[in-house]
């Protein structure tokens, strides 16, 4: 019996996984870089098999999709589009982040942004005889308020009744989509498209319609970074996220923090909707946000809840989407291809976090003498 016990003790599992906190930051980034490179290579080889062209051509197509012919001395048309898409995705990512830091799983950025856009659209279409600058200000304010209210509703229920915020915010997306669909039908008199209107639209800076959006989001990014990191409210969010009991013990009003943070979350998402509707589209439909509100959830995680890293991750995701769409269009692949490409790379990025947080050790394969 004792013999058996000792034998068992000598048995070591083939792989040991241990949590580690000691990884140097640059090593962590090296792992992430390697993961992205491997992801890109694998995606490139899959594309090669599908398109029957060289790896270089696949990548050059992707670059053409995201940046146009910028590197061949062409116009910056696509670069602006790339920055705009990145800015909007980043804005939605910034929107969900304060809530996420509080461990409030806001899956409703899509709906909050749609409501923001709807608020701006209603103001642009229905208001009459207002001074142009005031019209624009009202459109922006109404949009942000709509977004904030769409964030406030699930927060109130969470704070008062402890309802599940994930389900609640998800459901609110559908309500927002239907409201927009309903408004489109009324405003377009039964046609399915609202013709673009200029009244109440945001001004165009320097003849470049995306510039204002990009600047607004850049400012929002910096402000949010300081808000989360250095303000008292940002600290309260972090404490509530770590432990609600601790927060209560040190005198933080948890309900107030939840409600306040979700209003901010909804307002920033509403801002994204305003930028889309009053800034560029000047019209609205149920696809205006186009699912970016959901992508933002992933980007927020990928960005480790840090606004600057989120900006880089937004750029990566947008690059993958635009590049893959170009490859798909060039080689007559359908839209599933773009999903696969983005999926493969992001899987590697997410997967590598495992190797950053845990160390994996293989058993030393010493030959043991068996009796």
């Amino acid at each position, binding site marked *: 019996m004792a013999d058996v016990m000792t034998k068992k003790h000598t048995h070591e599992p083939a792989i040991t996984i241990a949590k580690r906190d000691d990884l140097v930051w640059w090593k962590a980034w090296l792992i992430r870089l390697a993961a992205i490179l491997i992801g890109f290579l694998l995606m490139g080889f899959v594309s090669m098999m599908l398109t029957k062209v060289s790896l270089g*051509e696949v990548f050059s197509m992707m670059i053409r999709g995201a940046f146009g012919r910028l590197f061949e001395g062409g116009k910056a048309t696509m670069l602006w589009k790339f920055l705009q898409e990145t800015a909007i995705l980043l804005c939605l990512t910034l929107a969900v982040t304060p809530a996420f830091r509080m461990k409030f799983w806001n899956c409703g950025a899509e709906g909050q942004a749609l409501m923001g856009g709807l608020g701006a659209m209603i103001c642009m279409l229905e208001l009459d005889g207002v001074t142009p600058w005031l019209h624009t200000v009202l459109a922006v304010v109404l949009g942000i308020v709509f977004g904030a209210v769409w964030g406030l509703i699930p927060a109130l229920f969470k704070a008062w009744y402890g309802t599940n915020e994930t389900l609640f915010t998800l459901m609110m997306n559908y309500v927002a989509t239907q409201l927009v669909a309903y408004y489109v039908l009324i405003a377009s008199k039964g046609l399915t498209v609202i013709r673009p209107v200029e009244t109440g639209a945001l001004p165009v800076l320097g003849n470049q319609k995306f510039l204002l959006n990009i600047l607004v989001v850049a400012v929002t990014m910096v402000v949010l970074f300081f808000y989360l990191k250095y303000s008292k409210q940002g600290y309260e969010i972090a404490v509530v996220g770590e432990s609600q009991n601790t927060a209560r013990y040190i005198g933080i009003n948890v309900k107030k923090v939840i409600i306040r943070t979700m209003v901010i979350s909804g307002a920033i998402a509403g801002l994204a909707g305003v930028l889309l509707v009053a800034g560029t589209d000047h019209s609205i439909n149920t696809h205006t946000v186009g699912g970016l509100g959901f992508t933002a959830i992933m980007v927020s995680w990928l960005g480790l809840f840090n606004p600057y890293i989120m900006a880089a991750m937004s750029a990566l995701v947008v690059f993958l989407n635009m590049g893959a769409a170009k490859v798909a269009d060039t080689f007559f692949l359908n839209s599933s291809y773009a999903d696969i490409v983005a999926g493969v790379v992001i899987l590697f990025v997410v997967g590598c976090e495992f190797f950053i947080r845990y160390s994996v050790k293989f058993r030393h394969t010493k030959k043991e003498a068996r009796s």
Partner: protein
Amino acid sequence: MKKILALLLAVVMVFGLAACAGNGAGKEEDLVVGFIFLHDEQSTYDKNFIDAAKAACESTGVKMVQKTQIPESEACYDAAKELIEVEGCDIIFADSFGHESFLMKAAKEYPDVEFCHATGTQAHTATDLKNFHNAFAHIYQGRYLAGVVAGLKLKEMIDSGKITAAQAKMGYVGAFTFAEVMSGYTSFYLGAKSIVPEVKMDVRFTGSWYDEQLEKQAAQSLIDGGCVLISQHADSMGAPTACENAKVPNVSYNGSTNAACPETFLVSSRINWVPYFEYMINQVKNDAEIAIDWAGDLKNGSVALTELGKNVAAGTAEKLATVEAGLKDGTINVFDTANFTVKGEKLTTYMADVNTDADFAKDTEAIENGIFYESKHRSGPYFDIEIDGITLLDRNYGE
């Protein structure tokens, strides 16, 4: 510091990839045509355009560039801009109704590029935009021919004693109660009526261009309501599948469903876009003007029928050939007011809403010499009359 370095690293990763890729641009042809599609080949509607674009660019020897999944929003304008500035396109074509306003915006900005748009309605009134064009087809001719196939099938069923003439009722699954759909089902009905004068038809609307479940349910409820033959104007396999399951003959749209529904498939009509694409490309090649509003027909091959199913009535092909010849030489007119009544009376005048405006004003007399001329005053359909013999079981304007 760490954060800034991390950020730099991330940016370098994205742009580093940009730098290492080779210059893989293909050789330049002289003419480049850019296509903007609402969805991709997974939608039968867009597939019909994509296949035609490939064929036309191949036959005319020009370069084709496409952008799929372009919604009916500012994204359409952006797509056009990109196609012109990045790909150097000389012609831009968009395939969805809702693209129109955004395409017109781009047309204003690029007067040297030709813009063509399917199913649109605004080119003929936008006289200041010389480079913006609409196109559609006299598809009601195809629907009428498909209706003739349906009528012959009904006649066979009556002659064999399977149904009585009074039971000759067809069902139709439509998307919306719009002119495009109404013009379609009315011409289909009139085709059948030219063979079986007693025929009746029930119509149901789904409120969506593509909703397989709804279309299937609508077809089933029509079958349950006594319809012995079904046709549809919606893009999914819903109605054909319901018919195959219930063994009810079906006339489909936009392409053959013969492979999936061999027992019940009769025929399908569709618009063939190759003639228009070739015309559009050749006009630009020859420095000639593209028509502001172009409507293809049976004669130039824009309106086409698929192969016949194995269970069509005997003699269908022969009858079709005669009717087709009649439509081509003008001896048969689909919307001849002698062939239908409205509330028991023959129609002598009808003001149609041809020019797009906010109030949907009826602005143009469509009946001349006893014939309602569809797709004459503009290519997009405007026949929206409810005629006797057709019962609308519901209506759906999209609310």
